[in-house]
């Protein structure tokens, strides 16, 4: 079985999730737990760094869909960064870029949150 892991660290008010390995129907609950924790701790500003992600399945995508609404309702968001081309293509096919913000690197994504706060 391919492995999956989520690393979490905070940058100011923004939580950065580093997803690693294979995100599919079997490993998705792990990511769900992380999101549940974030919501419990009222951390609604999330940046997901895909730098170390090898594969994402439809069930993996479903996790972001399940939580994005809650984040947005609480003045937060889920933003994506550092996607490899093949992973981005999967998002792209589904039209995610129309619904989510994608960034080249983590800093950019975090800055976007901070900017929004200033405005």
């Amino acid at each position: 079985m391919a492995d999956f892991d989520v690393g979490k660290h905070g940058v100011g008010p923004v939580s950065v999730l580093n997803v690693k390995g294979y995100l599919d129907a079997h490993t998705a609950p792990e990511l769900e737990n992380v999101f549940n924790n974030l919501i419990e701790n009222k951390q609604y500003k999330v940046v997901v760094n895909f730098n170390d992600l090898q594969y994402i399945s439809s069930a993996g995508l479903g996790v972001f869909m399940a939580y994005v609404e809650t984040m947005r309702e609480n003045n937060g968001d889920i933003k994506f960064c550092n996607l490899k081309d093949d992973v981005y293509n999967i998002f792209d096919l589904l039209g995610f870029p129309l619904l989510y913000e994608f960034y080249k690197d983590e800093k950019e994504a975090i800055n976007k949150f901070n900017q929004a706060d200033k405005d």
Partner: protein
Amino acid sequence: MDINYYEQSIFIFISSGHSILKITNLKKMDGGKLENAIFISVLLFIYKIIFPLNETITYLLINEILIFLSLFAWLRYVSQFVNPKLSRPLSLVINSGILNALIFFIISVTSWLFSESGNSVTNSNIVYVLFSTLIVFILIGALTYIFSVYKNLCFHRQKKNPKFYFNTMVVLFIIVALRASVISLKETESNLYYLDFSNFLFVVLYTTTITFIFMNSLRVAWIAFLNKKQKISLLIISIVLSILSWINFSLIYSSDFEIIRNFSPALEQIFSLTMIYGGIYFTVIFFITLFHLPTAEVIDRKSEELTSVKDLSKLMSQVFDFDELSETITNTTIKVSNSDAAWIIINKGNDIDLHAIEGIGIVDANKISKFLISSNMLSNTEVVVNNLTNINKKYTLPNSVKNIVSATLTVHNKNKGFLFAARKTNRIYEEEDSKPVGTFADFAAVALENAKLLEESLEKERLEKELDLAREVQYKILPQKNPDCKNLEIASLFIPAFEVGGDYYDFFEIDENRLAVIIADVSGKGIEAAFIMAHVKGIFSSLSKQYLNSKELLVAANSILKNNLSKKSFVTAIYGIFDFEKCTFNFSRGGHSPLIYYSKNKVNRLIPTVIGLGLDYSNKFENTLKELEIKLNNNDIIVLFTDGINESTNEDMQEFGYNRLEEVIKNNAHLSVDEISNEIMKNVTTFVKNSSQHDDITLVLLKWKSHKNLKGEN
């Protein structure tokens, strides 16, 4: 005349013995033990009738030998009934007691009868001989049984074999008996002829015999294995039996009772010695039991602990239900540790679950457990004893529990919970009471682990069933055969993965000139995906009749799906309509893999922008959705597929990808659709080699045939 009488008698005796031998030889049951005994007894009986008086040494010796033989034969026979009862020594003791009482009764009654009638009845009277023989046989029966019981008890649970002492004692019995028999001839006048203490040799012999009786009486190891209750009954029974034996001894000893003495002086000796043995044996038993009594409770508890451990291990291999087992565990814990209450807690995150609460209310048990946890009064490695008497009030704990033992439930070196045993009295837990709690905690831990494993295997079984069901749903939803179309050659292929993936394709014949085709992939896997698939089929088949434009249809489908799907589910789809009159293919893509269009030696990857169905909650879907319309030429090919194809991965983790797929299509475009589909699969299989298929693979190929249309018009 005298000689004649004896000759006749001997002849009758021998011939009758012969005939009995013949009869008994015919039936050989249970090794002939009973037959032997009966044979010798009958022989003895006949001998007794012929020679009622022991007048000469020869007659007497034959008489005594027959007596010994019959005693031996009966002993052998009786012993097979006594032996199996050894597991319940108390009942053997009681049996021998009843027989002792019977002996007492017979001796009392007969001596009373004969003292009434005085000496008028002569010893040679035939009635007297018959009666006395009968009495003697009953007494022999009782005697052999009693003796057999003593012998078996003496050997029971003995670590060293006491054979030597016992056999020596038996030999001494025989010597004493024979001596008495010889002397009886000389001193018939004296009532006490057999106890001639003036003879030094006799005194030595007799005291040695008594000493051996005493030594054999000390073999009472079996007493230790009785429980307290049995020991108390044995105490009472042994004192009664001891007294009874001494009374019987003195009755036989007394001058009033002459039946046995007249029958055989040796038998009388054996009888009185056995009674002495009984008297000494039960006196010894009485005192030893008395000394054992104070420790009886401890031994009882130890043996109870042992049996409950045994019972539990047996139960563990048969019962897997944790609740059922834990109840047995707390119940035995209470018994073995002398507690009033016991319960089990299982850690559940930051909280605890209480199980099998016995002898205490759930609220109290909960309160105490939580207090002990929060105040760090538990250990993950050893059994801990706590006295709550002084802190009950301070922490408003339930007053009832004064002392408490806790033991950890450890599974794979991880603490999973605790077993508690509590006393409502001030009696502090000593080590022998608290130790077993640890043992039972270990049992509880194993039970917990078993239950978990069972649950997992049940869950696995459930998942497998679910999988089968999902697969069945999927097969029923997919079209059974491709439509027969005038302008289209159609090939479709569906290869399921181990786990249901949620692939779906279908054809809808809208009217004579229009055929709709759909390919879709539901997010997620398993039964949920299968049911969403069924839902999707329903939506598309009904919408296909209402909307003749692919964009409008997808917009309608999206608005239905986004309200019906769970947040994390979505559907990707391509929906297209062939128009046979206009020779067009109008399609829209809802987040699905690209559509590959082959026309005039060129492969096109068509990816009109859009969002997946059920992804968006605003109206972005409608605003961004684009439809495409293709003007179809003869032999144009449209390929629809799910990501199972392009995501097929080989051992080097490379994906098959779109380029390889397009290459295969291009190279084989001249073939029929079935052949092209075979080529595609052949290439995919060669590419992945030994890697397993993760996702369903669905492939639909459609080849436009203009000439078919022309043919149709002609």
